[in-house]
């Protein structure tokens, strides 16, 4: 790990000033940043520890029925907040399908949005990566592409955003609140992350020094609480990143779908909202034929970025199955294996 200065500012203003210097990085839960620093993938000259900044650690219920989640709320605290899990069950399921219990106790809401890709070539400091070193090239092209994108990628970068949480959030129209030297502003999560294009190193709209202070979910997001799931295919049953995942939420009125929300994870450089697929479901019955059609629409623009064409069909099936699970109804209690397609039925031995 490189040497760095460690500062722990007491106020927003001090934090933003300290982090606006070149080479500075914010430290909150540290679960991703310290790992990247140990591997020499990022080398910040200064860590600005915001983990104790006041006012960022609360889950606040807004008068209109929405919720404002402070950027420092830990993943586990949010997922196990019973009111939050009741209103936004797919978000809770996505959170609990990610990482391990220890990491969820550390990792924060803001940090989750800013976590870096798990592309093996990004981690391989001996190889070329346009994200790490602009212009160096992309060894993932023609390399190990199992975790690479099939949507939204460019010739310069095929890495995926690894978050589960963001997938459920973007499906439900989450908004990111940001503070910077110019004051505070907000941006829909769908527009927060950037596609790689020719500048894959620029992963979000944040300018140097800007700090995520909260994530909001609108009241309308809770109207899907009876039919909302997160489904995630990974290489082992727990504690692994998604090869492909989907959040699906439905509002079913008199036997027909009145509203649908679909987003995909593990297949794109950002949490991927599938609006065309959502539209294909409006007014139709919640059945397999329509779910398959929506899944086709969700992956209509997909193309392999390497030896990963299988992910397109896999993601289609995940979307259709997540929709079927959502239609069947949110379970009264989250399954023992959140997000897992292998959740056992009672009495069946562990797989």
């Amino acid at each position, binding site marked *: *790990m490189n*040497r*760095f*200065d*460690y500062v*722990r500012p007491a106020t927003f203003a001090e934090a933003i000033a300290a982090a606006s210097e070149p080479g500075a990085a914010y*430290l909150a839960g*540290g*679960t991703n940043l*310290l*790992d990247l620093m*140990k*591997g020499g993938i990022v080398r910040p000259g200064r*860590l600005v*520890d915001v*983990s104790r900044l006041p006012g960022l650690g609360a889950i606040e219920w807004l008068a209109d029925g929405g919720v404002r989640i402070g950027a420092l709320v830990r993943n*586990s605290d949010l997922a*196990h907040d019973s009111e939050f899990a009741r209103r936004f069950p797919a978000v809770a399921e996505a959170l609990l399908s990610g*990482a*391990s*219990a*220890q*990491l969820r*106790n*550390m990792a924060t809401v803001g940090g989750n949005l800013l976590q870096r890709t798990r592309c093996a070539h990004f981690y391989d400091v001996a190889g070329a990566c346009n994200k790490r070193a602009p212009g160096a090239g992309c060894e993932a092209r023609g390399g190990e592409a199992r975790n690479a994108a099939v949507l939204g990628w460019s010739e310069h970068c095929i890495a995926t955003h690894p978050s589960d949480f963001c997938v459920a959030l973007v499906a439900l129209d989450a908004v990111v609140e940001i503070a910077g030297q110019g004051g505070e502003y907000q941006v829909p999560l769908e527009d927060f992350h950037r596609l790689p294009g020719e500048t894959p190193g620029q992963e979000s709209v944040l300018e140097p020094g800007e700090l995520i202070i909260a994530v909001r979910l609108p009241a309308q997001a809770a109207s899907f609480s009876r039919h909302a799931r997160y489904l995630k295919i990974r290489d082992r*049953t*727990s*504690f692994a990143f998604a090869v492909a995942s989907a959040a699906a939420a439905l509002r079913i009125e008199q036997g027909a779908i009145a509203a649908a929300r679909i987003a995909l994870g593990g297949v794109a450089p950002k949490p991927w909202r599938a609006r065309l697929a959502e539209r294909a479901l409006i007014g139709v019955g919640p059945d397999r034929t329509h779910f398959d059609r929506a899944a086709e629409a969700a992956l209509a623009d997909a193309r392999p970025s390497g030896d990963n064409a299988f992910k397109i069909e896999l993601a289609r099936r995940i979307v259709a199955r997540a929709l079927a699970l959502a239609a069947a109804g949110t379970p009264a209690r989250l399954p*023992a*294996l*959140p997000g897992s397609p292998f959740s*056992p039925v009672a009495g069946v031995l*562990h797989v």
Partner: protein
Amino acid sequence: MSLSVLLSVNGVAREVALDDPRVTLLDLLRERLGLTGTKKGCDRGQCGACTVLVDGRRINSCLTLAASCDGARVLTIEGLAEEGALHPVQEAFIAHDGFQCGFCTPGQIMSAVGLILEGHAGDDPERIREGMSGNICRCGAYAGITAAILDAERRLAERNRAEAA
């Protein structure tokens, strides 16, 4: 750059001067305080051998900067036994062969203590396995670990009942 952190480690106040902010909580425990029960496995948050409780919550001490723990309450495997009597989770790991080589065991036990404190898994073996997925055991003692945690929950419930009576 010199930093000083004040910690409660296993109930004892410890002030440690850090000559370098790169020191993780894991390295502080092992190298500065001589508490080598907490193990360094992968050192990247993937194996769970370094699990300790900070302010009552299980975390990976390898991904935690010691400097950011200033003022925290840390509980390690060395602080679990009380007056020479093993903690019920430790007793249950022995009773159920919840280990073989023992390297991951301090992390497994601290993670199990954290899991029981969280109270989400109950007596469902599947939820216990899922809740313990951050602790890898190369010897594959998982069946014994799950049995030990189920038994430890019973032992702790009995102890709490006895104390309440």
